[in-house]
């Protein structure tokens, strides 16, 4: 902290403000500096800090003092920090709050977040080192060189005012956004009421609804995100969208399923498919509703729900008997197996290998030994 000098807070000619962040506390090395929480400002030339309450308390340090810096992640009860390692102070350094310090580094603690953006900007400034190409000098009333009179000293106060204006503008934008949002919601609510009315009529058979119209109605519900009031199902199954999806999945999942022993947890499929898509991702419900259509579309995949509630997509070719037989074979072969051991053997996830063992147990082929050391399966000799 002895690299800092008192400053009046005025930016110099050619010095521009890059970013500022409230809620920053300074640390002298690992110790909290004897200053309160304040505002950290990064300019093209300096790191400046000012006390939030007492604006006269303002210190700065040239960016050239910085050797390197790194992030320190947040922890329980601790804010994220940026740790900045510094060169020794120069001999003609102006006075600051600390005469000397045993530390060669400081920390900025971001109590109101903002560290991500601050770090990024600091990084940019340290890469470009703009202070070297545009040396700042104290503001001279008559201007400098051919640009006499054009460049002016801009005080922190001026900058602050601009930022305050921008913040007010942002606030205005947000409140405008909320206003517009409320209006939008009123219209959305009308749609919800209308769909309820339609659903009731369908139930009471007031009118002659064709199959086609029902499908159309369901797709309207899907677009609006309204749960199907009739079936209480999330408006999913039966729309063209899900049918298309189901077919796409049928193609896309063949190879991955083969690689994974014919079975994948639905959440695995979710990750796989969405990672591949990159954009226009599927919602979990989209995926579920598409998978429910496998059977009716005669695709070679099936959605299966185990007793535990775990949902998997499996290749239809992988019949139940095959899975149970393979489980029994493996267990008999090794004498006994836990879900983890079985998983390693088959290259399956632990979750799914456990389900297979449980299934074999349910069918009476295996029995369990349940202890604190784990759940182990043995061939059923009873």
């Amino acid at each position, binding site marked *: 902290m002895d690299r800092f000098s008192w400053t009046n807070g005025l930016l110099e000619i050619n010095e521009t403000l890059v970013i500022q962040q409230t809620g920053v506390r300074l640390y002298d090395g690992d110790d909290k500096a004897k200053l309160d929480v304040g505002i950290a400002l990064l300019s093209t030339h300096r790191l400046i800090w000012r006390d939030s309450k007492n604006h006269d308390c303002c210190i700065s340090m040239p960016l050239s003092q910085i050797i390197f810096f790194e992030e320190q*992640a*947040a922890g329980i009860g601790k804010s994220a920090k940026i740790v900045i390692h510094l060169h020794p102070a120069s001999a003609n350094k102006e006075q600051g709050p600390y005469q000397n310090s045993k530390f060669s580094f400081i920390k900025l603690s971001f109590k109101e*977040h903002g560290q*991500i953006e601050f770090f*990024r900007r600091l990084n940019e400034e340290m890469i470009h080192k703009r202070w070297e190409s545009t040396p700042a000098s104290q503001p001279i009333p008559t201007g400098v060189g051919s640009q006499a009179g054009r460049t002016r000293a801009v005080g922190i106060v001026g900058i602050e005012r601009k930022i305050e204006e921008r913040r007010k503008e942002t606030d205005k*934008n*947000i409140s405008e*956004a*909320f206003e*517009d*949002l*409320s209006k*939008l*919601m009123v*219209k*959305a609510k009308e*749609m*919800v009421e*209308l*769909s309820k*009315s*339609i659903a009731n*009529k369908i139930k009471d058979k*007031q*009118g002659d*609804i*064709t199959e086609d*119209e029902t499908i159309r*109605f369901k797709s*309207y519900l*899907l*677009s*609006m*995100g*309204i*749960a199907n009031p009739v079936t209480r199902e*999330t*408006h999913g199954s039966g729309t063209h*969208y899900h049918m298309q999806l189901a077919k796409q999945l049928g193609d896309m999942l063949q190879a991955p399923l083969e690689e994974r022993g014919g079975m994948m*947890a*639905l*959440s695995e499929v*979710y*990750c796989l498919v*969405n990672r591949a898509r990159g954009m*226009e*991702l*599927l*919602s*979990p*419900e*989209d*995926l*579920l509703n598409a998978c429910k259509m496998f059977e009716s579309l005669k695709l070679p995949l099936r959605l299966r*729900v185990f007793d535990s*509630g*775990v*949902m998997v997509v499996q290749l239809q070719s992988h019949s139940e008997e095959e899975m149970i037989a393979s489980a029994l074979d493996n267990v008999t072969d090794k004498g006994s197996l836990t879900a983890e051991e079985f998983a390693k053997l088959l290259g399956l996830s632990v979750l799914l290998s456990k389900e297979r063992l449980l299934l074999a147990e349910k069918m009476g082929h295996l029995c369990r030994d349940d202890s*604190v050391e*784990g759940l182990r399966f043995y061939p059923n000799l009873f």
Partner: protein
Amino acid sequence: MHRRGVGAGAIAKKKLAEAKYKERGTVLAEDQIVQMSKQLDMFKSHLEEFASKHKQEIRKSSQFRVQFQEMCATIGVDPLASGKGFWSEMLGVGDFYYELGVQIIEVCLALKHRNGGLITLDELHHRVLKGRGKYAQDVSQDDLVRAIKKLKVMGNGFGMIPVGGSYLVQSVPAELNMDHTVVLQLAEKKGYVTVSEIKDSLKWENERASHVLDHLLKEGLAWLDSQASGEPQYWLPALFSELTSRDVTPEEANQMSP
């Protein structure tokens, strides 16, 4: 206008029914569906207008997202139900939460071998942010909670357990009843719990306490330290990871043997 294949009798019957309804002032369902289609188109253009002005707010402001979600819930609309929904397509809310879902699943999977499938919301938040990198959009805990709620539908055991003012996120279908939950809450302060502590605080008998602890051990949610001075301590990795251990990346965790 003729409808093919419909006899004159049927037409007459229908006309009679229609007349009856119209008399009563009731609108028929199929007419309402047509009406809905028109209103939907109008709504879509309003939403487009809203999106062109305010899409950034949703992206940037987690506070705005919270408000948005709550408003939708109030009127009975789920903007995250489908990627094909208007909300998702035009405001981009969908992709934000669905991608978050993928990241949550991946973090939980990577750490499961260590904490048995239980993780604090704080740690999950921290690791998700880390995984997203320096330049990604900020993600709040509310965002995580909503994404997790959506993941539940896939039957992978996602759930949230209130503990110590925040939550534990469960990502495996282990059965955890009230007894288990209350012991987890007790363990939250120190990261571990003993049988005596359970008996003192909750006034349970030995068997009940042991039964619960055994279950947590079996599910891999608790580790037993039988060499602790005094009596054995049951540690919950989900709770102590940030206090003591070195930070492990998901990649490193993957390479560790289960």
